[in-house]
């Protein structure tokens, strides 16, 4: 077992276990914390794949931003001591059947597929390359999606302010 395999399996186990805990925990704040672990492990996977910039983004934005946002809203809308109700059995069974069936189907398909794998490029992605790709308008340039995303973020910001604002009436 190589280091990579070991690290991968470690992260995988953390991700799967905490994912399961996220969707089954009866305490909502704990669920949010478990989600944080999942997201951090994911960023570990990115480090493993030598996408350092992306892993950093994952950490700051997902783990730092979104999870904090979720925790804030949890605190706004629920009591910490409150336990979530256990979903009805039929609901759980049907959802589990659907999820397991889908997972089995996908995994079977994945395992049957042969991918043409290249040799691993161990180089770290240069931050300069990312910046140029982000602002370039040529081939492999992402200036337009970048601009669109910035407009989307602005719209989301204004929209959430308007939505969450107290109505005068």
């Amino acid at each position, binding site marked *: 077992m190589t280091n990579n395999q070991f690290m991968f399996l470690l992260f995988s186990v953390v991700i799967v276990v905490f994912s399961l805990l996220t969707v089954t925990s009866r305490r909502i704040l704990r669920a949010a914390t478990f989600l944080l672990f999942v997201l951090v492990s994911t960023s570990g996977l990115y480090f493993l794949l030598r996408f350092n910039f992306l892993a950093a983004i994952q950490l700051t934005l997902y783990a730092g931003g979104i999870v904090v946002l979720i925790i804030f809203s949890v605190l706004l809308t629920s009591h910490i001591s409150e336990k979530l109700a256990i979903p009805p059995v039929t*609901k759980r069974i*049907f*959802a589990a059947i*659907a999820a397991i*069936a*889908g997972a089995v*189907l996908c995994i079977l*398909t994945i395992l049957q597929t042969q991918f043409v794998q290249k040799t691993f490029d161990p180089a770290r992605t240069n931050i300069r390359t990312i910046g140029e790709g982000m602002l370039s308008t040529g081939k492999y340039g992402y200036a337009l999606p970048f601009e669109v995303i910035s407009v989307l973020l602005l719209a989301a910001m204004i929209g959430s302010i308007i939505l969450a604002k107290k109505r005068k009436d």
Partner: protein
Amino acid sequence: MIDFSYTIWILLIPLIVFVVTGLTGNRFKPIVTGIIGTAGLGVVFLLSVITAYKFFFVLDKVGGAFQRLLAFNHTWLHLTDKLHIDIGVLLDPISVMMLIVISTVSFMVHIYSLGYMKGEKGFARFFSILSLFSFSMLGLVIATNIFQMYIFWELVGVSSFLLIGFYYEKDSAVAASKKAFIVTRFADLGFLIGILLLSYTTGTFDFITLTGPNSPAFTSGQGIMFLGMSTMTWSMLFVFMGGAGKSAMFPLHIWLPDAMEGPTPVSALIHAATMVVAGVYLVARMFPIFHHEQSALEIVAWVGGFTSLFAAVIACTQYDIKRVLAYSTMSQIGYMMLALGVSGYGGEDGLGYMASMFHLFTHAFFKALLFLGAGAIIHAVHSNYMNEMGGLRKYLPITHATFLIACLAISGIPPFAGFFSKDEILVAAFHHNKALFAMEYLVAGMTAFYMFRLYFNVFWGQEQHYHHTPHEAPVTMTIPLIILAIGSTFAGFIPFTKLVTSDSLPFESHTEWGIAIPSILIALAGIGIATMLYMKKSDTSKKIATALGGFYTAAYGKFYIDQVYLFITKKILFNYVSRPVAWFDRHIVDGTMNQFAYVTNVVSDRIKGFQSGQLQQYALVFISGVIALALLFIYLWTN
């Protein structure tokens, strides 16, 4: 060539007045609407007089005959190159004469109504519909083709319906308007069939083509026989059925007496002078074809003759003065139909045609006068029944004088108008059919009798106790009476033989004193009997009535025609035709639809649970669907 295109305004003005007053009637004071309507009709009257003057005296004649000219024409529906429906203005002697009759009487009735309807609820509505009626009636007479005539014919029926039901809060008025509409509609169905047969066989609607010397109606439609009569005869009979419905000929007459529920000016205008003669006008308009189809014309004559006698008998027994006048109208229209029925075509043979039109003209004056007079009487004593009246001549001097003139005119006493026209009819009948002629002599006597029975009962006899002292009508009501009285006196001197004839060629006529003198004597005898019986209060009339027994009762009950109709409709048609049809409609047609609705309802009730509003259920279904599709396309459907 004189330009007659302005005659379209004769049609348009009443229409505009109708639309304007109908839309704005509630905004102005009622009297404003009345004045607008009357002024509009005044203009129409002037235009009609000018048109008549130009047509008869200024316009050049072609070969001595009056022209038939299209003053205005617009192709409305282009069906085929030959068959198209036009809207236009046709001017020929009879349509110009009808313009005069309608505009005069309508104008008089408008003025009269200003007084008579004063203070009535719906005054504005009344004038508005009156304008609609004038528009439709004028459109009917100047129709260039039979289809245009049919359209206006129905419009006339609608306005008649609206005016009979004017007092729509009264049940009897509603019933009467419904009855009038249904009976005339039924007759109009025949008219429509006639139109379709005629246009199918001849390929044209146009009057000028149809009644011209080379009419396709003379040649086509002769081959196919049905029940011993050709297609053309049948089509003429169906057309006559429409005319008989509108003109209240037996047996389609039952609506006319009930139509008296409408306001009296309406009775004068629509149910005496103009609309009810539309049937006569229709036959006159199609006369060349009728003349060609002698068997149809014979039926016209007999229906007319029988109706005139039948209605005269009933008129002798009625007490409601408006109903007496209604039956008298039927009787007189019977005269006109008879005259057409016995007429020949061209020159002196067309005497009956001329006489019919002549009688239509004079009758319009004196019958309108009689109705308006009756209106003034009713206005004064608030009753329709002559046995609640008497001795009114002191209170209503003008009404009395004009009413007397009208009675003399209708009885055929010279020199009043009725004498001349009736005399021509009798002469025409004498030369054609002696039986009909004798019948008409009898009717002439009865006419004189029932008119003077009415006259003496109302104006002489014993004075009754009234709610308040009867008073003479206001000036807006008496002026039309006087004008119409002048018309009734002098209209007989108009030389109709020079103006309105079957082939538009003038001819000489002379009073046949051998026929005229006995008719005058018969009329005088009728008047004499009425004088003896009713001038002083006496029981003689009651004794005679008792002596006549069953016949009197039958006549008083209008020969139970209404009951026969009710029996046929209620007992036979409703039970054996309408009920099964209604059953079929309710259970089969509606039932099918109800089943559809029921099934849809049940199914949607069952499946509406799918729309639970539960987001997670939707998601579950969606994901299951995606998985199923993936399964299907990746593993199961792999060929």
